[in-house]
């Protein structure tokens, strides 16, 4: 089976770079599943999970991104994300605390942070896409 090359880039470093089988990215209008040979797409992303699978559809890694962009062509998929963390390294209690703190504050920026934090919480509590 064919593979597609996948780069996950944050401003600070190159987080992931390998040949993989399938990727699921959280597009702004809905999740995108990307297989080798995907048509050329440029999409902006919402906060959510980027899931990486190998050729036999088993999950390699899942990341949480706080938004960004994906550029997809038949051979390559590049995700530019502002902040990237592995979902496994997220802790529920600390996120809940963050949400509580943010809820007490106001302003446009806090609203954005709040939506990111909420998406984070969702990312660790859901398990669809774990098997595809």
């Amino acid at each position, binding site marked *: 089976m064919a593979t597609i090359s996948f780069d996950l880039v944050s401003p600070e470093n190159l987080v992931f770079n390998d040949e993989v089988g399938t990727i699921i990215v959280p597009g702004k209008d809905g999740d995108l599943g990307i297989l080798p040979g995907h048509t*050329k*797409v*440029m999409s*902006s992303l919402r906060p959510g999970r980027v899931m990486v699978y190998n050729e036999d559809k088993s999950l390699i890694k899942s990341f949480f991104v706080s938004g960004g962009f994906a550029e997809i062509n038949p051979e390559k998929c590049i995700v530019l994300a502002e902040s990237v963390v592995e979902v496994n390294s997220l802790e529920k209690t600390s996120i809940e605390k963050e949400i509580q703190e943010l809820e007490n504050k106001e302003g446009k920026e806090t609203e954005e942070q709040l939506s990111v934090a909420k998406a984070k919480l969702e990312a660790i509590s859901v398990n669809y896409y774990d098997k595809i």
Partner: protein
Amino acid sequence: MPSLKDIKTQINSVGSTKKITSAMKMVAASKLRRSQEKAEAARPYSSRLEEMLSSLASSAASGEGIIKLLTGTGNDQNYVVVPVSADRGLCGGFNSSINRETFKLVKSLEGNEKKVQLIPVGKKSRDFFNRVMKDQIIESFVDLNVSSTGYESALNISNKLQELYFDGKFDKCILVFNKFKSAISQEVTQQQLIPLDVSNSEKEEEKENSSNAIYDYEPDEETILKDLLPKNVSIQIFKVLLESDAGEQGARMAAMDNATRNAGEMIDSLTLKYNRTRQAFITKELIEIISGAESI
């Protein structure tokens, strides 16, 4: 004529200065490597973003809101100049060349009857402009420590700039920073940040356009562009901060290397002087003894 003891003290004090400068040189050298790695690591992101942007830029004819980051306000009366310097000194001409260049730029803009405001980044430029043009400073950012705080610090500056821009406080923003050329040379560079200067990537744009013509955009080109433009401002600032940080370490390394060498030379010449003086004393004492013995 200084006494032997005086020279000895002087040699010792130059010696300890030399120790300090050579230690600083080594610290700067290792920091330089780290800064360079950081700058290297940030490159894929910014170059990708630029590519995306240049392929999208053509689709934005004109518009309101965020698109103004690309198209400009239509005016060029009010400027904001952002000099990026280091927080600390002892790095040769690194800071002063930034300050000098910025000062020249501000004066020449004012000569053309533009209104100029300043947002200095880094203690050294803030202090300098606090002395010479205090009333033009609208905000300053110090103690950024970009190599440890990372992207966050760039975001702060970028948010502030965009806030001011959309409030109509300025029409153009120019960064003045040290571009990292090699470990021993930096080049003072001016870069127009807002509105985005796409002219330098125009060639790439043409090339990109031909291959990008068949991209599907999701949700649509304009929405992506609206997301992309503010991010681009932040990433440009981030890149500049990293370059400047690497440049600072390089400049400090070179300056401290020079200082160490100079201290070494100074010690050599002082040691020579010390030995000569010592010999002169011995000769003098010998003459005294001999002439004393002869006179008996």
